[in-house]
């Protein structure tokens, strides 16, 4: 893992979020100089850190933003809405690029172009006065950097040394300078420009960039580069929170970064342990039933209870390892909502509230896109234009709340706007056009049922497809994305007063390990926990018993049932070549169910049955398989009851 990059991403995101929050606060209280100073420092620190990586457009954009902020700081410029919008747009762009950098290790190909557009917006917002402000900035710059450098302790300094291409002629050996850096902790040597063709390569032009980290005091590092100070950038790696440092350092010491794959492996092993434990449970019961020496039996039962308890705790602890706080995800949205609103000429304030919850990492990761879509929808379709709002007697600035709260075993994220609400008549007419529903069908639907129509695939009420919402995903995509995480989406709306979309999700993704069994052309899943044993029954073992069949298993007679028959197909396997069967049931009530064959063991996310499927006996839920098929999950205990 690349620690330097991880740290950069971690700090970059924190700084961007802090800057975003401060900018929104600044808009409410433009006179607060401490907010401007904080945003300036955040942007400045980010800019310094970008120099460690090949992130030219990001560094350049931050540089322009820094100039603008310095103008505000030195009161050359006065904050206004256009400036705030440009700065917020910048921060949103920075966060996006951080995501791109994390995912792809580089900025997207259009980064330079986008960066220039954002820079132009900043320049325009400053009324062309950024250049003027810039000179003031450079003076302020060095003072601030010096303040960070000199303190003692094990502080790391990042070094970016870009030797001039003619440095060899000047007699410099860049490698010798790097060699002179004390306490070198890390060194990367990269090409400044991509290496050209080897046959025309000029050996006397230096095309190297050195990125290093040293634990030495800044002065000693500077001494190593004393002949080339203009070609070196030094950034203190932990310079962001002077005041709260001790707390940060302590948390860092107690944290350990572990690749997610290793956690998954651990979780899988624990699952296997649970299954092995279940097998033991069954053996213990048999021993107890066999009436062996009661002392041993009691001791075994006590031991088994202990193992059960410890295994359950282990299972839970491992599941908890994957929990991460939900709030960083939610905190991204105020600034995103603001940026979306700017693009549509609306004024929106998005407030985040609610409990601090910890949720499975994959759920948090999977929620960004659906939530972004909902926020976009709310701003684009939910919130009225300024004119319509004032005509309706509403404040010009619309309010969207994003609230997270715990409800028993699950949590709810509710996104509520104070916009126009969903127009049911328009929904009905769209349903007639796009879904081909006729008037009588629609008349039979309750208001809530009509609202639910927005989740139908192919349904979008927007008459014109705008750049924002018309990105090819509708509410059906939101529902399926949330559904894939094991959650549900619901909507409530009041004409003229607003719309609330609620996502109900589990804290954890609970995977169920199932064996897939075949019966005719159909495949079903059976939870491994529900199977006592899988057996192969030879033809001579099968004994007819009245209308059915049975066989002897571990000295007891088990009824031998057929899966197609149990599912109401009224069909039995012939059994002339023997049968595959699974022994299922609880306690004394055991039976064997014959299947055509057993295939894979897979982990699935099981969802309870909904709608008209709910209540089917013997089926406990459905799951999507890797190849996109729906697998019905059987409940064997119900099947044989």
């Amino acid at each position, binding site marked *: 893992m690349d620690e330097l990059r991880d740290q950069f991403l971690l700090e970059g995101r924190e700084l961007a979020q802090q800057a975003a929050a401060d900018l929104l606060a600044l808009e409410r209280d433009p006179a607060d100089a401490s907010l401007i100073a904080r945003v300036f420092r955040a942007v400045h620190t980010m800019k310094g850190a970008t120099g460690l990586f090949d992130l030219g457009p990001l560094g350049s954009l931050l540089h322009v933003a820094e100039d603008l902020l310095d103008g505000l700081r030195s009161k050359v410029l006065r904050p206004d809405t256009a400036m705030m919008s440009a700065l917020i747009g910048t921060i949103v762009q920075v966060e996006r690029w951080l995501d791109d950098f994390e995912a792809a290790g580089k900025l997207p190909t259009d980064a330079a172009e986008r960066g220039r557009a954002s820079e132009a917006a900043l320049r325009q917002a400053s009324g062309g006065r950024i250049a003027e402000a810039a000179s003031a900035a450079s003076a302020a710059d060095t003072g601030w950097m010096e303040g960070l450098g000199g303190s003692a302790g094990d502080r790391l300094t990042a070094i970016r040394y870009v030797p001039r291409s003619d440095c060899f002629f000047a007699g410099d050996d860049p490698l010798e300078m*790097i060699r002179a850096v004390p306490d070198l902790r890390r060194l*990367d040597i990269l090409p400044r420009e991509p290496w050209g063709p080897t046959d025309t390569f000029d050996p006397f032009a230096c095309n*190297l960039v050195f990125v290093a980290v040293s634990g030495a005091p800044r002065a000693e590092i500077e001494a190593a580069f004393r002949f080339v100070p203009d070609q070196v950038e030094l950034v203190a790696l932990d310079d962001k929170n002077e005041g709260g440092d001790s707390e940060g350092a302590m948390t860092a010491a107690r944290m350990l970064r572990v690749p997610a794959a290793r956690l998954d492996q651990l979780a899988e092993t624990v699952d296997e342990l649970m299954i092995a434990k279940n097998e033991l449970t069954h053996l213990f019961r048999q021993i107890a039933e066999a009436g062996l020496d009661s002392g041993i039996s009691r001791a075994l039962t006590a031991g088994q209870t202990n193992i059960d308890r410890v295994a359950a705790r282990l299972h839970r602890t491992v599941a908890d390892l994957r929990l991460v706080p939900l709030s960083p995800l939610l905190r991204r949205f105020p600034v995103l909502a603001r940026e979306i609103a700017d693009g549509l000429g609306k004024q929106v304030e998005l407030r985040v509230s609610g409990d601090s919850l910890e949720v499975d990492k994959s759920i948090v990761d999977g929620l960004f896109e659906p939530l972004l879509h909902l926020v976009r929808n709310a701003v684009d379709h939910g919130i009225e234009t300024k004119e319509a709002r004032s005509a309706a007697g509403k404040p010009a600035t619309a309010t969207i709340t994003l609230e997270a709260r715990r409800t028993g075993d699950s949590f709810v994220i509710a996104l509520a706007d104070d916009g126009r609400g969903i127009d049911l008549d328009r929904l009905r007419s769209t349903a007639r056009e796009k879904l081909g529903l006729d008037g009588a069908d629609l008349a039979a639907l309750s208001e809530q049922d009509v609202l639910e129509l927005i989740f139908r695939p192919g349904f979008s009420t927007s008459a014109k497809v705008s750049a924002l919402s018309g990105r090819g995903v509708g509410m059906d995509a939101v529902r399926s994305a949330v559904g894939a995480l094991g959650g549900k989406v619901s909507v409530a709306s009041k004409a003229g007063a607003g719309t609330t979309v609620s996502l109900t999700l589990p804290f954890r993704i609970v995977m169920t390990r199932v064996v897939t069994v075949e019966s005719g052309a159909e495949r079903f899943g059976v939870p491994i926990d529900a199977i006592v044993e899988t057996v192969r029954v030879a033809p001579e073992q099968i004994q007819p018993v009245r209308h059915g069949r049975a066989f002897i298993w571990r000295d007891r007679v088990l009824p031998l049932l057929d899966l197609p028959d149990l599912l109401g197909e009224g069909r039995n396997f012939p059994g002339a070549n023997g049968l595959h069967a699974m022994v299922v049931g609880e306690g004394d009530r055991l039976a064997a169910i014959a299947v055509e064959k057993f295939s894979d063991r897979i982990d699935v996310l099981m969802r309870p049955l909904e709608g008209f499927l709910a209540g089917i006996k013997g089926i406990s839920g459905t799951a999507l398989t890797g190849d996109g098929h729906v697998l019905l999950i059987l409940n064997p205990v119900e099947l044989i009851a």
Partner: protein
Amino acid sequence: MTVHLDHRTIRLEGNCYVEDAEPLLALLQGGAGRAVDVSAMGTIHAAVLQLLLIFRPQVVGANSDAFFNRWIQPVLAMADDE
């Protein structure tokens, strides 16, 4: 330093300076797949290292310089993998 070709292996001997870059470049351009033996090399100049990074020859031989082994060798090995 001397740069000389021994069958298909380019040997670097003694401390490498900037002027060694040109003969090394000629040898690297002269035959694809030539390995570079660094076992008798002293310190390495950035201009020489740069050639090893662009041509990515197979680097053979154990060097006794601690700085080279700790910091340069891994960079060259990384280039090898790509």
